[in-house]
Structures are given as structure tokens and as C-alpha cells.
């Protein structure tokens, strides 16, 4: 008896549906994509249950990294960063006017150096910048000695540049409390008694 020959189906699978789905997903991701903001140092924020999202604009960010270094950033709405730079120029008697320095400042996100290092940092090449970020001590914020408290001038000038801005503290989980205390004290002295602590969502372990 001859074997029953099972008719072989075509090995081709219709890819149209799969293609549809994948492009749908692709469209979704393209539309929701927002490039991660460039950050000079990695900061692991603590987690919490709060569900208030951080606003996208009008935000002054004070970043505290694992080692307790303080950095500042602000979003550039209506040229706020240009005004901020102008203010800082006057404040710290700097002369940052070269177009590439100004550009670097305006598009720089969080500025990872103190005022003294700022002109060199803005003019530096990428490699040198990396090195500076590694070695810098951040913005000094000694509350006991208000002359040495550079952070207050950064905050003051940032708020002068954008009066609608809210202050967000982005601290690393492991940042020493002593530094956070300095930041909070400085903010308090500036009359900023309401601010936000940036956290990521999720349960802690």
C-alpha cells in the first residue's frame, strides 16, 4: 500500500500581520520617545510611592551625586539659560562670551563644575571634560560660611533668570545627609521652603 502522502504546506508564513504589529509598536515608541537627558554623573534616585510627576519645563535641578558633590542645572525655556549665564557672568566676574562656550553652556544640561572651573570646562574638549567631571568637587555649599557658599549664588541667579521655576533636588540614594542638609539650608535661606525631592517609582527592597 502506498504511503499516504501528506500534502506539504507552504513553508512561507504570511508576514503581513506581524509587520503591521511591529510597525504599530514602532510608531508608538517613536511618538513616546524622549531622549534621556544628558547627565554628567550617574545618580540613582531613591524610590517612593508618590505619584506626582516632575514638570517638564521651568525646573531648576540641584543634583547631588554619590560622593556628595553638588551640581546645578536648569531647563532652557524662553532663553532662561542665556539669562542665567549672563547673571553668573556678572556674579562671579567671569567673561564667558565666546560662542562655543555659550553654546556649551546653553545646551549643557546639568553643569558638572563649580564657577571657578566653568570657563575652562566650557572651552574644553570632550576628553578633558570627562576628566574634569571626575576630579571636580562640585559647587561648594558651606552653610556656616556664607561667603564660601557658592551654591546660593547659583540658585539665586537661576531663580532670577526664570522666576516661574520650581526647585527639584535630585539626590543619590547614597549621598551623605550632611550635604543634603547643606542644600536644604541653602534653599531655606533663599526663601525656597517648598521644593521637590526627585524619586523613582517602585517599591524599595
Amino acid at each position, binding site marked *: 500500500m502506498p504511503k499516504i502522502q501528506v500534502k506539504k504546506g*507552504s513553508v*512561507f508564513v504570511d*508576514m*503581513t500581520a*506581524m*509587520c503591521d504589529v*511591529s*510597525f504599530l*509598536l*514602532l510608531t508608538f*515608541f*517613536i511618538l*513616546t*520617545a*524622549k*531622549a*534621556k537627558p544628558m547627565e554628567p554623573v550617574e545618580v540613582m*534616585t*531613591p*524610590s*517612593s*510611592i*508618590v*505619584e*506626582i*510627576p*516632575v514638570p517638564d519645563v521651568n525646573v531648576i535641578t540641584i543634583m*547631588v551625586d554619590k560622593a556628595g558633590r553638588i551640581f546645578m542645572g536648569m531647563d532652557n525655556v524662553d532663553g532662561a539659560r542665556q539669562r542665567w549665564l549672563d547673571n553668573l557672568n556678572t556674579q562671579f566676574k567671569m567673561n564667558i562670551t565666546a560662542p562655543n562656550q555659550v553654546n556649551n553652556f546653553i545646551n549643557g544640561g546639568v553643569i558638572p563644575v563649580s564657577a571657578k572651573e566653568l570657563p575652562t570646562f566650557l572651552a574644553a574638549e570632550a576628553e578633558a571634560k570627562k576628566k574634569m567631571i571626575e576630579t571636580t568637587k562640585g559647587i561648594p555649599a558651606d552653610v556656616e560660611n556664607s561667603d564660601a557658599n557658592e551654591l546660593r549664588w547659583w540658585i539665586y541667579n537661576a531663580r532670577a533668570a526664570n522666576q516661574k521655576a520650581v526647585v*527639584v533636588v*535630585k*539626590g*543619590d*540614594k*547614597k*549621598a*551623605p*545627609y*550632611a*550635604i*543634603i*542638609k547643606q542644600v*536644604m539650608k541653602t*534653599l*531655606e535661606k533663599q526663601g525656597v*521652603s*517648598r*521644593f*521637590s*525631592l*526627585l*524619586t*523613582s*517609582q*517602585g517599591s*524599595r527592597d
Partner: protein
Amino acid sequence: MAEIAENPQGGGGKKGRSKKPSPRVDLTPMVDLAFLLITFFMLTTSLSKPKAMEIALPDTENIPVDPPPVDDDVVMTVLLAPKNVVLYYFGSPEKAAADPNGIKSTTFDKESGIRKVILDKKKAVAALPNGLGIDSKKNNKTMVLIKAVDSSVYGNMVDVLDEMHIADIKFYAILPISEPEKTLVDNSMKKVVQK
């Protein structure tokens, strides 16, 4: 590459006419490409937006001359020590320091840590006689004072603030730590280390 559409019925296959190429196109490479792009966008998107915990610092300039007295029964102080240790005591610091078991230490454990302590305290306050623990707005009057030593970490502070949200504590404040309390923390840390 096009798939040859098999047509077992052969309906309409007329002889003599030149065969039309099948309109089907192999979409596999296209799907590959699409998935590659999806992967790229998934990895570069930050889907989980950061959340902000609102915090209000107490006004240090306009302190009322005669602040209303606070009942010791509703107050609880949380001291943040290094190494993820949390110390706490109830009532006034003098009483707690005098009592050998006044200062207790706990952890950030979900089941048996500081959360349970706060929730228990809240219950105890709610059960105070004459409604002392509940104010006119039916808020629980438990008051938590958070104090941290310089050597503790920021993450622990946020954890405790998070506990305030979880336990729905209406009155809490971050206060500077006093010298006697620093000594308390130091002494208690020695005990913890010995254990």
C-alpha cells in the same frame, strides 16, 4: 522573493495566458528592521518618568512667640543613624534618655521595621481617651519628628518620608538634630554594633 500562491481549485487558470507574478512580497526583512528599530526606541526611551516628592521646610523666621503646647503622647521622634539603622523614641527626649529602654532601634524592613512602629503609634494615638489623638478635622494627630545625623544617607531620609506617605501621617517635620540626641545615636549605635 515571492511566494507562489497555490491554488488547489485551479479556478480560472487558463491555459496559454502568461503567468502573472504573485503580488505577495516576503516581508521578513521588513519585520526584522521594524523590530530592530523598536528595540532601539525601547532602550532609549525613559518610560518611567521620575516622580517628585513635595517637601516643605518649616518657617524658621516667623516662629510664633508662644507656640501651642504639644501633647507628649502624640509625638514620636525618628532618628536616622548610619548603616540603615533607625532609632525612635516616644514623647520628650529627656524622658526617653532617662529610660534605659526609651530608645529603640529598628530597620527599614517592610513587615517588622519602622513602618509597623509608625502604624502602631498611629493606632495608639487614635485610641487616646477623650479624642485627644484626633483633631477637629478627624485627622490623626500623630506627630513624627525626623532627625538625621550627618553620617546617615539621603536615601534613608527619603525612605522615612515615604513611610509618612504610606502611613498617612499629616504632621511631620525634618528637624536639625540636637547634641543630646547625637550622643543618644552614638550610644545606641555602639549597642547595635555589639549585637
